[in-house]
């Protein structure tokens, strides 16, 4: 994991001092609220429905046990004893006191954490694959490049006042687990025929009011050109992105207005001036960054023996077997596995986690996974380097702490925004809908039989819950002051990314569990052996689903 040096620390300390001064000026009435607004946003501080909300960056999801304990301390000391894992792999606190935020940021700086650019019209936290460095299908570990992007984008003087927020995601695996095609910039790491590292560059993807799949504007960008090319894209966007209408200000609108081809030409033209400048990455810098993400001290393990032992444990404990099936993934190192701790037990807001649970996770990370964990954009937490021989013990401890719900990837592993319970933008509640659906699908064997289903819920069209790319997406809408829910089908955030189609008229909150049940029934009645929900939908289309859901009661 990346370790801050004296430069990183001094930059962060200067930032904390700057924000403390700005907060003091605001509280003294010297800094008008409209001027304080973008400054506080760039330090992670939103004003929400009930209280401020503070968003802390977890760069590309990597976090260590010391940092997790600090998050627990902040939850306990400054907040109401819990926090929330966001779909940008960040951590959110819902109840901080504005006057204490500089102190919180100062405490976070002690462990190399911050809220820098976690909100606002600037380059946000770069996200990545939560299994980076461990996935068997990985081509190149994306994390060194994410860290290089983190440094370049932090406090970038030219791009702190962009037309709108700006999100970058990087994946280095065959299977995209970072949803790169629905980001402002998505980077897919590739090797060329000579074995050199480069990036396929997608631009102009994104969700929200105008959902778009990104356009590939470069098939192979050599790794040393990463920053100069990003700088060219951002400059074109900063100069030509629309500023007259915030709903048309994202880069996706510019890319569509110009066409991806013309946009790419403008970027290439700009890049000609930049590509051989000082931003060109050096071999030394790439190697330095890679040096922070080397393999931990793995033991040499006989994988067959370890797996046999695990299988024996699974045959004795059905519950452990289920957890293995859903929450444990293959690892590229023999004898190891990657474990997802589910933050989606029924009845808890998806992604919520208490201070004492955070401390337990820190302890588990220390005991089982080299002191490191990862946050995921599906709002769970991963321990990525666990010995198979220790899975059973880990499972018992995770179960006792409440995050061994064996539902990863299933219909109850719901991505869900905070919705109307917390967010001032929301048109409708999301969390109670998630809970009602989880209750509808309580029978685990039945849920497993359904296989992988992404069910995503957003409380408004800003799409923080990524409803457009859920196989089943739910969008909260407001109709004459009453909350309704629109259903979309066929979205997908992975390699063959697609946006969901609206099924038809929206439903009341009470109807939602039944509606989802009917959709699942249509799938079960139509699927071929082994066919996933998304594939059945793509094959048979929306008509059978519509028919069932909107059929008149008989």
């Amino acid at each position: 994991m990346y370790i801050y040096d004296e430069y990183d620390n001094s930059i962060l300390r200067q930032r904390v001092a700057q924000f403390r001064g700005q907060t003091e000026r605001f509280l003294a009435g010297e800094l008008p609220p409209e001027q304080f607004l973008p400054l506080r946003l760039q330090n992670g501080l939103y004003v929400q429905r009930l209280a401020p909300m503070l968003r802390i960056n977890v760069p590309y999801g990597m976090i260590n046990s010391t940092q997790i304990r600090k998050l627990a301390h902040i939850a306990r000391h400054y907040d109401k004893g819990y926090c929330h894992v966001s779909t940008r792999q960040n951590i959110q606190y819902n109840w901080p006191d504005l006057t204490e935020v500089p102190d919180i940021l100062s405490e976070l700086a002690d462990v190399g954490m911050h809220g820098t650019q976690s909100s606002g019209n600037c380059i946000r936290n770069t996200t990545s694959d939560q299994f980076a460095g461990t996935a068997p299908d990985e081509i190149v570990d994306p994390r060194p490049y994410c860290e290089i992007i983190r440094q370049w984008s932090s406090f970038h003087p030219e791009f702190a006042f962009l037309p709108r927020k700006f999100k970058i995601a990087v994946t280095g695996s065959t299977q995209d687990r970072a949803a790169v095609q629905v980001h402002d910039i998505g980077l897919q790491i590739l090797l060329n025929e000579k074995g050199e590292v480069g990036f396929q560059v997608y631009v102009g993807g994104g969700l929200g009011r105008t959902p778009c799949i990104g356009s590939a504007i470069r098939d192979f960008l050599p790794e040393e050109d990463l920053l100069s090319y990003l700088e060219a894209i951002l400059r074109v966007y900063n100069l030509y992105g629309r500023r007259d209408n915030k709903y048309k200000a994202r880069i996706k609108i510019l890319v569509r207005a110009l066409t991806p081809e013309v946009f790419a030409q403008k970027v290439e033209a700009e890049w000609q001036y930049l590509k051989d400048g000082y931003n060109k990455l050096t071999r030394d810098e790439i190697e330095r960054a890679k040096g922070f993400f080397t393999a931990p001290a793995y033991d040499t393990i006989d994988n067959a023996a370890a797996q046999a032992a695990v299988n024996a444990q699974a045959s004795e404990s059905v519950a452990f077997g289920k957890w293995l099936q859903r929450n444990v993934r293959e690892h590229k190192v023999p004898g190891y596995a990657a474990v997802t701790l589910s933050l989606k037990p029924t009845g808890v807001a998806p992604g919520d986690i208490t201070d004492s649970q955070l401390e337990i996770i820190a302890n588990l990370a220390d005991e089982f996974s080299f002191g490191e964990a990862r946050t995921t954009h599906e709002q769970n937490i991963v321990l990525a380097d666990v010995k198979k021989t220790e899975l059973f013990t880990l499972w018992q401890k995770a179960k006792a702490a409440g995050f061994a719900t064996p539902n990863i990837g299933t219909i109850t592993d719901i991505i869900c925004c905070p919705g109307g319970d917390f967010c001032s933008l929301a048109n409708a509640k999301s969390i109670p809908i998630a809970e009602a659906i989880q209750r509808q699908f309580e029978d685990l064997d039945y849920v497993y039989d359904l296989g992988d289903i992404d069910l995503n819920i957003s409380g408004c069209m800003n799409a923080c819950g990524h409803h457009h790319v859920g196989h089943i997406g739910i969008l909260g809408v407001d109709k004459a002051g009453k909350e309704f829910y629109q259903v979309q089908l066929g979205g997908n955030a992975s390699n063959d990314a697609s946006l969901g189609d609206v099924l038809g008229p929206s439903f009341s909150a009470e109807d939602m569990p039944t509606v989802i049940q009917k959709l699942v029934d249509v799938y079960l009645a139509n699927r071929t052996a082994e066919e996933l929900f998304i594939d059945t939908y793509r094959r048979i289309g929306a008509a059978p689903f519509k028919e069932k859901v909107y059929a008149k009661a008989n």
Partner: protein
Amino acid sequence: MPKLIKDGLIVENTWTLIAKPEGEAAAAEVPAGQVIIPVSVWLAQKETLQTRTDIGVWLDSDESAELIGAEANRFPVIGVNFPLFMDGRAFSSARLLRERYGFTGELRAVGNFIRDQLCYLRRCGVNAFAFANPEINLDEAAKSLQDLQEYYQAAVDQPLPLFRRRA
């Protein structure tokens, strides 16, 4: 006389900023003395204004630095305007004037920028700050130039990114 921050010091502002003309740029009157005129007026009246050495130009946020381009160094001062402080196009324009067009004179932020942007503006090559708001306390504002003193990226004031300087 109004004051501004230049090269970190508070100095007299000896230049008069001329607003955009209501009518044709070609017909706009350009007064005598040190004036910073809209780039559109310069482009329309270049023939007659060529000989004057007491003319600067200013770019609005939607006007490209390319309009000045290679001519940049014929001006002692160029202004980049902030109609709203959230409109960040001037940051790019400033860098382009310095880095692409090699402008070495006074690069002045004008309009509604705020003191909390001073550090970033300086990094983009702006060395003078003329706030539209006459109430601003310039001594206090100038302190913000010191907010951040170490940086990751290449920019005008420090062309070497940290990765080329790290020991």
